[in-house]
Structure formats: C-alpha cells, structure tokens
C-alpha cells in the first residue's frame, strides 16, 4: 500500500487538521469530525448538512462554505458517520429555519442519518428534512436492491440547494429543490483500477491489466460487470446511454453535464472523456447548459470516472450560477 499517510487509523483526523490549517475560513470540531462554515449558525437561514464516509474528497468537507453546505460530517474511510456527529452538527448549524440532511442512499448512511434526525427532533426539537440522493443508474431501483446509490448528483445538488438556502428560501422549498435535482439527475461510473482502504492495506478488488469495471459506486466496490478495456469513445457510450434511456430527456432540454474523476485519473483524460460525452449528447439533441469537469466525488486513488447529467430549469441554472465560496467550488465571490 503506497499512501502519503502516517497511521491508517489517523488518516481522517490528520486530514481534518490539514483542512483546518489550509482553510482558516472554516471551523473544525475535531472531536466530532465535523467541518463548519466559519459563520455558522446563520440566523434565519435553512442549514444544510451532509456527510458520509471519508475517501471521497472534496465531497463533503470541500463543499462547506457560503452558498453550499453549513456542515459536513466525516465518517471513517468509506464508512458513514455516526448519528452523534450529525446530531452535533444539526444543533450547531440550526439558525432557526430548519435543517436539511443530504444523505447519499447507502444503507449505512440512511440508517445513521435517520437515527440522528430522530434524536434531533427528540432532544432539541429541530425541524430536520432528509433528502436522499439516489442517482446511480448502474443499480436497479427495485425490491431486490437497497435502491440506487447516491453518487455524482450529490455534488450538483449541494451546490444548487446551498444557493437556494443562501437566498433565504424556506425549509419546504429548499427541500423540494433538493428532491427536484435528485429526481432530474442520473449518473453512471466506471473504474480502471481498484483502490485501497488504508486500514485494509490491500485493494478492495483486483482488476487485470486488460479489464475494467462498469457500473461502480464510490466505495471501491466492484461494479455491475467486468468488461475488456475499451477506447474512451466506447466507455462514454457505456456511461451516457444508460443515463439517457433512464431519464426522459426531451430533445433540447438543457442539462448540467458533470464528468467526475474517481481520484486517480488525470485531468487530461477527464477532458478527453468530456469531449466524448458532449459529442454523444449532441447526437441526441441534448444541450449542455453548464458543465463541471474534475475529481469532485472520488474513491480514494481509484482510476476511472463517472458521468452525471442533471436536467435543468432556469431556476436551477440561476442557483448553479449563484456565488459559492468553498474550498472545492468557488465563484462569484
């Protein structure tokens, strides 16, 4: 295992020290492993909390700041945070207008956030609305699965919903926008290599030099199928076509197109993939209104990428364009 770390057990807490040192505009609760925007709680503003296992950086801590999240709870590597963290965060950021929990749809995340919301209601009487993201078309949403995983759409959602909250919109509206973005978004990912959880010390799965996994999530887990390595053109089709056939795009609908790196793939390859994605979308008459290219929801050092498309409305685009000031996304300020 080759990593820039000290003890595997200390990776998350030491990275939080680094985030604190690099971003004095944030506040870090090291005991609870929660990252706060510096001016939290913002009175009268709906507060946004997300969180999840670590190893997906910049998600979620890199999205804390004005115009996006109020707090992010960092779990152990690839393991959802525990209810206490979300409870602490919920109490700390509540500005009186209620709190939205943004939860990626994994059994563990959903259960831990659920317990936190129960406790927040019982202990502190705080209004919490949970929004679960489940955009991964690689997973069939049926009785036979835990439902679709929450992946790339989470990034787009946190930005857009963060802007809505920043504008002072009320809890119900903010939650509705979150649900709309999730309903309008679909993703699909692939891996060229596996990744290694520091405490495990070896790759979660093995892939031969001529193989890749299609339909992976973001936890170094194997995907839906293992296929021979293919050119970028074909990989792009394997990712985009299932999205388009799942989401009823009408020709001409504007989308936010997001090509995400899994952590170990260089930017030049992501731009090359973006070109393929844009080409395929053009062929379907889907217009790209906004784009995002880079490693934003990662799986440690995994090589690979995912594609997320979100069907946008004018309101959603305006919220996307609104100012944001976080370590990983910043514009307008």
């Amino acid at each position: 295992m080759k990593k820039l770390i000290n003890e595997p057990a200390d990776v998350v807490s030491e990275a939080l020290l680094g985030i604190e040192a690099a971003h004095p505009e944030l506040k870090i609760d090291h005991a609870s492993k929660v990252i706060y925007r510096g001016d939290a709680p913002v009175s009268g503003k709906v507060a946004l909390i997300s969180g999840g296992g670590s190893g997906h950086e910049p998600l979620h801590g890199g999205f804390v700041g004005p115009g996006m999240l109020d707090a992010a709870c960092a779990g152990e590597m690839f393991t959802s945070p525990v209810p206490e963290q979300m409870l602490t965060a919920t109490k700390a950021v509540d500005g009186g207008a209620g709190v939205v929990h943004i939860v990626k749809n994994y059994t563990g995340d959903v259960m831990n956030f659920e317990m936190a919301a129960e406790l927040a209601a019982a202990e502190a009487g705080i209004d919490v609305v949970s929004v679960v993201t489940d955009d991964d078309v690689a997973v069939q949403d049926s009785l036979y699965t835990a439902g679709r995983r929450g992946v790339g759409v989470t990034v787009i959602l946190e930005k857009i919903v963060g802007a809505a909250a920043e504008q002072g919109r009320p809890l119900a509206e903010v939650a509705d926008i979150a649900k709309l973005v999730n309903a309008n978004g679909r993703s699909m990912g692939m891996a060229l290599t596996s990744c290694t959880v520091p405490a495990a010390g070896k790759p979660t799965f093995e892939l031969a030099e001529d193989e890749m996994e299609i339909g992976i999530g973001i936890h170094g887990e194997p995907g839906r199928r293992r296929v021979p390595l293919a050119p970028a053109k074909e990989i792009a089709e394997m990712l985009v076509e299932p999205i388009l056939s799942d989401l009823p795009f009408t020709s001409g609908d504007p989308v936010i197109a997001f090509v995400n790196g899994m952590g170990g793939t260089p930017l030049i390859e992501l731009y090359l993939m973006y070109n393929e994605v844009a080409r395929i979308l053009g062929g379907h008459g889907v217009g790209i209104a906004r784009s995002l290219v880079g490693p934003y929801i990662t799986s440690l050092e995994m090589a690979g990428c995912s594609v997320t498309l979100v069907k946008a409305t004018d309101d959603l685009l305006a919220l996307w364009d609104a100012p944001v000031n976080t370590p990983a996304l910043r514009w307008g300020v």
Partner: protein
Amino acid sequence: MSETATLSGLNAWVREFAALVDEHKEELTRLDSAIGDGDHGINMERGMAAVLAALDGAETPSSAALLKNVGMTLVSAVGGASGPLYGTFFLRLASACGEVTEVDADTFAKAVRAGLDGIVARGKAESGDKTMYDALAPAADALDEALAGGSSLRAALEAAADAAEAGRDATSPMPARKGRASYLGERSVGHQDPGATSAALLFRAAASVLG
C-alpha cells in the same frame, strides 16, 4: 450449569464476542471486499475495541446498564450499516433485560427476539435477503425452540450458535437484496455475507460463556 445469564456472564459474552471479532477481523473484511466495500472487519473491530474501552471505565451495575453501554458505544463508534444494526440490537436487548443483575433463560430469549425485531425495524431485512438477519433469525428461533423443549440455557445457546452458523452458510448461494451487496445482484451469489458471519460469532461467543 447455570440456568441464568448473570451480569458477569453478559460481560464475558461481550468480551468473548470482541475476541472473536478481533480473531476474524481479516476474514470479515475479506468477505466484505468480495461483495461490499471491504470494511466490515475493520468496522466491527473498531466498534468492539471501543466497547471494551467504554466498559473499562464505566459503572454498569445492571444488565440494562451494561447492554445499553454496549449498544450506545457501537452506534457511536461504528457507523456504516453494521453500527446502527448491532447498536440497535444491544439497545433493545438492554431494555428487554431490565435493571437486574441476572436474567433467566426465557427472558434472555425474549430479549434476543426484541433485539432481532430492532434490527428489522431499522434495516427492513427479510429472510433470504443475505444479511445478518439470515444468521440471527434462525438463531433466535433455535433458542426459543430448545428452551421450549427443556434444554438448559447453555445447550439452547449451543443450538442457537449452530443455527446461526447454518444460516450464515446458507447466505452463500443467495443473491443479496439488502445493503451494499445488493448492488452486485447475481454477482453476489457464491459469497458468504460478512454481517451474517459476524452475527454467527455473536452466538458462538454466547454459547461458549453464557448460561
């Protein structure tokens, strides 16, 4: 042979479970790597180490106090799917055992049933979903049945542990329908469920020190 689960017996159970988890840490992680995210052993080990540390410093004068401490510690140290599930199991066990220092076999069996119900309430697992439920439910059934047939607590726990292990083994051919493994669909077939494997350790620990 004692017919009750004493406070020290419950204590020994928790410690024995911690020891077995520690011993099987790599196996649990390996199983989770095949169909999950490769952290079940790490999660359980972190959780049980936290439990041991918590118990060392705590006053736990009753079964409820002891088991609640275990449950709370698991909820706040594990995360993932197994944290709330095992945590809820012990929290329900605690309520069902009550503020006593000794519970009889029937009470213990009812407490186990309550713990199982808690897991179902949180995770909505059903039989055949390829989860810890598939080891825990047969174990609870075997415990009830053996006690009803007049077995001692120890013998009934033996039967329960055997049933848990059979249930664990039976998860191999199942396609997963809950938890991360469900994403793999048919690709999960042929792999034993990690949570069912740790659940079998829980009952094996009980059989070797309780009753």
